C-alpha cells in the first residue's frame, strides 16, 4: 500500500509535523512539505553539499537522510539562521564579503560553517578549508568564503567579548 507516514520533529527550533510518502528524504520534506525552499539540491546523491542542514546540530546531507528517520530530531536550515530581522554574523559576513555569488550553494555552506564555529570559534584557514570541502561552489573559487567565515568568527568573538 502506498501510504504516507507522519512524523513530529523540531524545525528551526519550532515543533513541526509532516505527513509524506515514506520514500522522501529530509530534503524533499523540507522543500515540498514544509515549504522551506532555502535548502537547495544539486545532485540528490551526496555529491555536492548543496542540501546540507544541521540534524541535531551536525551538518548532514538532507538528500541522503530519510525524513522518517528525523522523527523526534531537530533540523536546522538556513531559514532559521537569522535572529528575527538580524542576520547571523555568518550571513552578514557572507553578504558583505562576496561569499555568496549566485547564492545556490550558500545555504549549505552557511549551515556547515555554523556547525564549525560552534565547535571551533576561531578556526584556522586550514580547518575552514577542510570543514567546507564537502560543499562544491562553482562561482567564488572559495577564497571569499574562507574570508567570510573568518570575518564572522572575528565578529562573533568581538560580540561575546562585549
Amino acid at each position, binding site marked *: 500500500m502506498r501510504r504516507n507516514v507522519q512524523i513530529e520533529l523540531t524545525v528551526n527550533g519550532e515543533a513541526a509535523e509532516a505527513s509524506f*510518502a515514506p*520514500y522522501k528524504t529530509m530534503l524533499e520534506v523540507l*522543500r*515540498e512539505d514544509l*515549504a*522551506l*525552499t*532555502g*535548502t*537547495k*539540491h*544539486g*545532485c*540528490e*546523491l551526496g*555529491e*555536492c553539499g*548543496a542540501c546540507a542542514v544541521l540534524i541535531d546540530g551536525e551538518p548532514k546531507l538532507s538528500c541522503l537522510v530519510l525524513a522518517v528517520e528525523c522523527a523526534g530530531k531537530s533540523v536546522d*536550515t*538556513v*531559514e532559521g*539562521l*537569522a535572529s528575527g530581522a538580524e*542576520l547571523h554574523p*555568518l*550571513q*552578514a559576513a*557572507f*553578504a*558583505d*564579503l*562576496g561569499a*555568496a*555569488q*549566485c*547564492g*545556490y*550553494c*550558500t*545555504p549549505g555552506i*552557511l549551515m556547515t560553517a555554523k556547525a564549525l564555529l560552534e565547535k571551533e570559534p576561531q578556526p584556522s584557514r586550514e580547518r*575552514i*578549508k*577542510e570543514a*567546507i*570541502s*564537502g*560543499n*562544491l*561552489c*562553482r*562561482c*567564488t*573559487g*572559495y*577564497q*571569499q*568564503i*574562507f574570508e567570510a567565515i573568518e570575518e564572522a568568527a572575528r565578529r562573533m568573538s568581538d560580540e561575546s567579548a562585549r
Partner: protein
Amino acid sequence: MKVLGKPRRRVDGRAKVTGQTRFADDIVLPRMLHMRLLRSPHPHALIENINDEKAKAYPGVHLVLTGKDFPVTFGILPVSQDEYPLAPEHVRYVGDPVAAVVAKDEQTATEALDLISIKYRSLKTISSPEEALANPEPRIHAYSELGNIHRLQAFEFGDVEDAFKRSDLVFEDLFFYEGNTHLPIEQHAAVAAVDGEGKLTLWSSTQVPHYVHRALARVLQLSPAGIRVIATPNGGGFGGKTDICNHEMVVAKAAMLLGRPVKVCLNREEVFYLHRGRHPVLMKFRTGVTKDGRLAGMHLQTLVDGGGYGGYGAASTFYTGALQTTTYELPRYKFEAARVFTNKPPCGPKRGHGTPQPRFGQEIQLDRIAEQLGMDPAELRLKNILKPNSLTANWLKVGSIGLAECIRQVVERSDWNNRFRKMPAGRGLGLACGAYLCGAGLPIYWNKMPQSGVQLLVDRSGQVTAFCGATEIGQGSDDVLAAIVAEVLGIDPFDVRCVTGDTGMTPVDLGSYSSRVTVMMGNAAIDAANKIRLQIAEAAAEQLEVSPERLSFANGKVFFESKEMTFAQAAGLAEEKFGTLGAVGSYKPPRAPGRYKGAGVGPSPAYSYTACVVEAEVDPATGWVTVPKIWIAHDIGRTINPVLARGQVEGSVYMGLSEALMEEQVFRRLPPKLSGALVHKIPSLLEYKSLTSLDMPEVDTVLVEDPDPNCPFGAKEAGQGPLLPVMPAVANAIYDAVGVRIDELPITPDKVLRALEKKSKGEPARVGPEHFPAVPYPEPLVVPPPWEGGDGNAVPGAQRLKAKAA
C-alpha cells in the same frame, strides 16, 4: 565617485544568505503538476514507432507529449534552427528528448516514463571529428555544409606565407583542448503557468529570457504578446543557460494544454546531456617571428567537435579564431575552422566562448618562442602588446588596453624576475595573458534595435525602480544596475529597486552572455538616469535658485555649496513640474569597422585584458601537479564593486584551474561488435571532477583600471576574461618546473608522468596531439588588414591574386 569603486554588500546579498532568493525550482503554485522528459538511449537512431498508451493510462498521469506535438523547430542562431522540443523521428545523442510525461508528482511521472515504448532503428554513430570527416554519411543533419561538417570558415588577413618567408623563425604546434561543461550547482528548472487572461508565463533558470520569449512564440505559434518569460536568478550559469532548452518549450506547451501550472527540474545527468559546454578543439598554430621577438604572422587552423546540434556552434567556431589578434600586434593572420557534428550532447558557449581553446595554444607557443629566442616570456609579451585605440588585422577596433600594467603587477607580485627559471627542480612559474569581449557587437538575430534598455521610475518618496531585461546569474548584474543608477542620481544603491529579467515587465536586454551586461546595461542605465537627473536638476534648481548644471547629486542630496535639498524633495518638485517621472535609456554598440562576411563575430565595444602567473610543483615520481599560488591582474577599466569584481576574477581563476587540471566532458563507446552504445562517461557531480576547497590555491588578485571610453564610467567586463590565461599559465609553469610540455587539456598526472618518462629516454618531452587531419577548408575570404589598404571588405575573387602580390 560616491558609489562606484567602494567595497560594498551587493544589493541582493541579503536574500542570498537568508535562503530567500527564489530559484526556479523554489517556485510552487497551486494545482501544480510535474513533468519529466524521456530521453533517447541511442546515440544515433530513427524513431520507428512510439507507444505511449500505457503511460497515458497510468494513474496520476495527466499528459504525455511526443514529437508529433511539436512541428516547429527552434535554435538560438537564425542559421541553425535544427532542434525540436521533442525529437519526432531522428535522435542524435544519448539524452536527446523524445517524450514527456506530466503527472501529479515527479515520482509518478518518472514511473510512467518507463511505460513508453519506442522502437528505434539504429544508425551508424559518429564519435569524433576524425570520424565525422571520414564519414559524410549517415548525415547527422541534412543542412550541414559538407557531409557531417556543420560549418567551414576561412579568412586571410594579409599574406601569411609571405610573412613566414620574411620571419626568422616559424613555429608550428598542435594543441588539443578537451571539452568540458559548466556544472552550475543549480540544475535547470522551469515552471509554466497560464494566467487569468489565458496568457502564458514561464519562469526559467535561463540567462536569456528574451531569446526564450522569441523561441516560445515560434515553437508554440503564439503571439509574443501572450507570453511572458521571467528569468529566475540563476544558481550559476557560466553559459550553460544561454541556449534555448527543450524542457522550456515542452513545459510551456504542457501548461497551455492542461491549463495548470507545470514544473520541470532536470536531474544532474540531464544537465550533462543538455550541455552546450566547451567544444573540444584541435588546433594547429603556425607563427612567424623575427629574431628580436616580433610576431610577423599567424596561421591558425581549428577543428571543432560540435556534438549533435548547431546551437551557438557557428559563433563558437568563429570565436576559435576571432580574438587571436586582440592582444599582441599581429600584422598578418590566417584563420581556418571547421565544426563537425558528432553523436554527443551539443556543445556551445562556456565562459570564454570559443576563445580559451586557442588562447591555450597561443600562450604556450609564445612561451616556446620566448625560450627559443632567449627572451623572458614577460618581456616578449610586453614587447608585442597591441597599441590602445588601434585596429587589428581582422578589423576589430580595440580601445583601452591595461595589459602592460597587468603583466607588471603579476611579475612583481610573484617575484617573477628572481624565480622564473631559477626555482629548484620540480617547482616552476608560468605566465600567460588573455583578452576578452565586453559584449558581442552584434545581436544574435540581425536587427538595428538597442541591445539593452533600462527604464527608471522615480517618485516623490525618493524611491527609484530600475527595470531591465538583464538576468542575475550570480555575477551581480542587479548590483551593477543599482550602483550605476545610484551613482548618477547621488543616492544609495540600496534605495534602488531592481526589476530584471522579465520580458513582460522590463525593456529588452539580450541576456547575460558574452560579458555584455555591465557595458550595455550600464550604458543604458546611465542614459536613463541622466534624463531623470536633468529633470530633477531643473526642478530643484528653480527652488534653490541656481542654474541646474551647477547642482551636484550625492549622498541622497541635490546641492550647490550650502544650498541643498534631499533627493526625495527634489524628485517631488520634478514630479510637480513635469508630471510622473520616468525615463528610458538604451544602448547599441558602435558599428564595427569590419565589412566582410564573418566580421560580425569578434567586434565589441571594448576588450578586457588579463595577465596571470601560476606557480606549480610537480612530483617527478608520480607526475602529480600541485598549484600552491596564482597571481592574477585584470584590466577591468573601472571597478563598480570591488568585492564582486574580485569574486568574478577569483571565480574565473578557479574555473580555469579546474579545467586545466581535471574537468572533461568525455564519452565512451562500447566495443562495436557487442554494442552500439556511445555514452557520456561520467554524468555525475562525483565523477565529473571539479576543484573542492581543499584543492584551491591562494589567489592574489589585482584589479587594474584602464577606463574605456565606450564603457559606463569606463567599466569593462570581469566575468570571463580572467579565466583565459589560467590554463596556459599552468602548462607553462609545469614546463618551468620539470621541462615537459603538456599540449592538451586537462593536464592529468598520467600525462605529466608520460612526458617525464619520454624526457628521461631522450625523446621529445611532450604529450599532446601528434596529427592534424586533412580538413577540406574552403578558399579563404581575403581581407587586407587595415595597414595594407582596403576598407574592411573582402577582396573579390578576381583581385585576390593582386592583393596577394601586394
